[in-house]
């Protein structure tokens, strides 16, 4: 399967899962909103140019926004993490040229610890920005802090489960530089 086709399927799948499963769950607590959809952006290939990465993030977020009737909210957060992604990858990539030898960020291509940090940092940025925008219209400071902490925790658990259930075998590609 080509990268384009694979990512197109993921695009729809992640949005449908987010809208029709995770948003439909009975609320556990007001601090907890299970977010998983932005994993799509974290899984995009290394080779994507930065401009199209940012643009993809924007449209992806906007698609989700039309389901939640909050145009711009998720789009802003997704644009932010799509823009920051290359910087975080550059900082965390351990082996020389791993971003050339492998297709996309994963446990096999980056290793457990760097990949975990990569996911955690971008999750945190995404949630901080998202909750901050929500906080501007209502809420208190404790709501802000509590929601970021709880939501980040839930998201990390969800991403771990997804990574274990749908293990992505990333082949080592030589001579691609």
């Amino acid at each position, binding site marked *: 399967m080509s990268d384009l086709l694979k990512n197109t399927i993921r695009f729809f799948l992640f949005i449908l899962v987010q809208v*029709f499963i995770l948003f439909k769950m009975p609320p556990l607590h007001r601090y907890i909103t299970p977010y998983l959809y932005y994993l799509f952006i974290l899984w995009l290939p290394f080779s994507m140019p930065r*401009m199209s990465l940012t643009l993809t993030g924007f449209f992806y977020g*906007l698609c989700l926004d039309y389901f939640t009737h909050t*145009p*711009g909210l998720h789009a*802003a957060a997704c644009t932010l993490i799509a823009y920051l992604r290359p910087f975080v990858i550059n900082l965390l990539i351990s082996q020389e040229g791993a971003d050339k030898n492998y297709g996309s960020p994963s446990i096999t291509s980056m290793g457990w610890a760097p990949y975990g940090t990569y996911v955690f940092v971008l999750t945190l940025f995404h949630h901080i920005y998202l909750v901050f925008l929500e906080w501007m219209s209502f809420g208190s400071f404790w709501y802000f802090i509590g929601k970021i902490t709880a939501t980040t925790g839930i998201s990390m658990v969800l991403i771990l489960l997804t990574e274990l259930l749908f293990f992505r075998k990333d082949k080592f590609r030589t001579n691609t530089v």
Partner: protein
Amino acid sequence: MRNVFLFIRRYFNFLFFLVLQIVSLSFLFRYNKFHEAAFMGVAGEMTGRLNEKFNNVGYYFKLKMTNEELVRENKRLNQLLRENLEGPDSNRKLVSDTTYTDSLKKILKYVYLEAKVVGNSVNSQANFLTIHRGAAESVKPNMGVVSSQGIVGTVVNVSENYAVVMSLLHRQYKVVVKLKNGGDRGTVEWDGLSPFFITLKDIPKSARVNIGDTIVTSQTSSLFPPNIMVGTVHEIIDDKSSNFYSLRLRTATNFFNLEYVYVIQNTQYEEQKRIEDSTRKKFQ
């Protein structure tokens, strides 16, 4: 000039990012003014259709409960039938006079339109419902929405076949209600804590309130007919520094299993709005 182009080329990605951020933030904060007309029509139609497909699956599992609810409502309505109320009306005599006033003729002010709920959220801070009835079937923004149990929200946006309802569980939703016992008016809003409870503010301390009292809609809200259930008093919060009670209400509507709602069309809403607006303009 060359330096400007160099600058743009050097920081193109960052500038592009900034532009997208500005676009999305302007979507977010100017939502009510222009956005809904421009994009929400088409997008609402598409997400509405998807929601409907999904609802077809979930609906099947709730058939039994929906049926029970309808039976209960039918029973309540049957009891209101004219035939059930009997007794000679001896204290009214029709007297023919030169002035003609038909005291028996009543106008139909509120029209109920039924609609199926195809999308519903309860776990965000800004909850909306999508219903399968739109502008083609005379739904307009600013119509009240009730379920058989109590009030649900207000229509905020319509497309051809679907409408989006701002739920009572939205942080910006406000509606004027009254105590059934005594008639003191106050405003209901949601504090975002739990989807089972809402807050009623500005009830004067002179009002007699007990736990379990019924709260109903007031005729001053002009979106809802009077005396529709809103909730029951769960807790009375007595703020010593003010002259008003804050009441915590248990919502009458169970937002978790809404299947059918009624959109209420106030046939005189435009007229009332017009005269109120023109008065306001006069005294500005």
